[in-house]
């Protein structure tokens, strides 16, 4: 969706590009959009959480936020097991790499079928699939 900033947000923005997409305009204004993402679980994770898929409304969130905050908060009864299954932990704390990003343990995280960095910023309609180590054959 394209909007003209000078039509919607007044003179204060006239010095900027006069055309941005809607999310871009709101980001510029410091407004964070709530986005809805679908999360799919398989195998051991599906069994642990007791659900195959669910939706989350997240605000200005990365994949790391989803895994570290949103999902364990929604599944408090198994949040410790979740953290231990998904992340490398040291004395109960999630280990981080040099960039401060949490280290995933043996799982693949796909967004719309593609591997993404843990700092990927979630977008509305994203489908996140969390894949435990495979075991077919």
């Amino acid at each position, binding site marked *: 969706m394209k909007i003209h900033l000078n039509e919607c947000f007044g003179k204060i923005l006239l010095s900027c590009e006069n055309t941005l997409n809607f999310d871009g305009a709101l980001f510029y204004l410091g407004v964070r959009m709530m986005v809805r993402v679908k999360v799919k679980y398989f195998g*051991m994770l*599906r069994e642990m959480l007791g659900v195959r898929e669910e939706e989350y409304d997240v605000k200005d969130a990365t994949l790391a936020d989803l895994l570290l905050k949103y999902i364990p908060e929604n599944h408090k009864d198994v949040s410790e097991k979740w953290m231990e299954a998904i992340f490398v932990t040291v004395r109960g704390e999630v280990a981080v790499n040099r960039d401060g990003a949490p280290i995933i343990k043996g799982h693949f995280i796909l967004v719309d079928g593609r591997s993404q960095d843990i700092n990927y910023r979630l977008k509305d309609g994203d489908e996140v699939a969390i894949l*435990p*180590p495979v075991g*077919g054959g």
Partner: protein
Amino acid sequence: MLKVKISEKLDDLNSLLNEIKGASNEIGAITIFVGAVRGLGKDGEKVLRLEYEAYEEMAIKTLENIISDLKSKYGIIDAIVEHKIGSASVGEDTVYALVASKHREEGFKSIIELIERLKREVPIWKKEVTDKGSHWIENI
């Protein structure tokens, strides 16, 4: 042809064999792998059944990519892979892989690589249910 199927019910193996035989008159070898449920776990416990599940769309895409790689690498003519999902009892077939090639050598190499990559890369999971409990199997 390149047929990949993830299903609760595998097709009849003979019909798959006839299907792939008809793919080309250049075929001189068909190499087949059949995976079945073993009745003993790794610690000797009695296996009651396996329970499979898959991320189906990704599993199909990954298998198609593997077969495409094998065509480029070994020049095989065609392949069919079927993998079971759901519950499988002891002795039941769970995987059919058929590779059609001009000669046996590329067929042998391809079938090994196909199954090894299937076990490492394709998003399928299995839980082994035994008389002593159940656990998820990881192919590492």
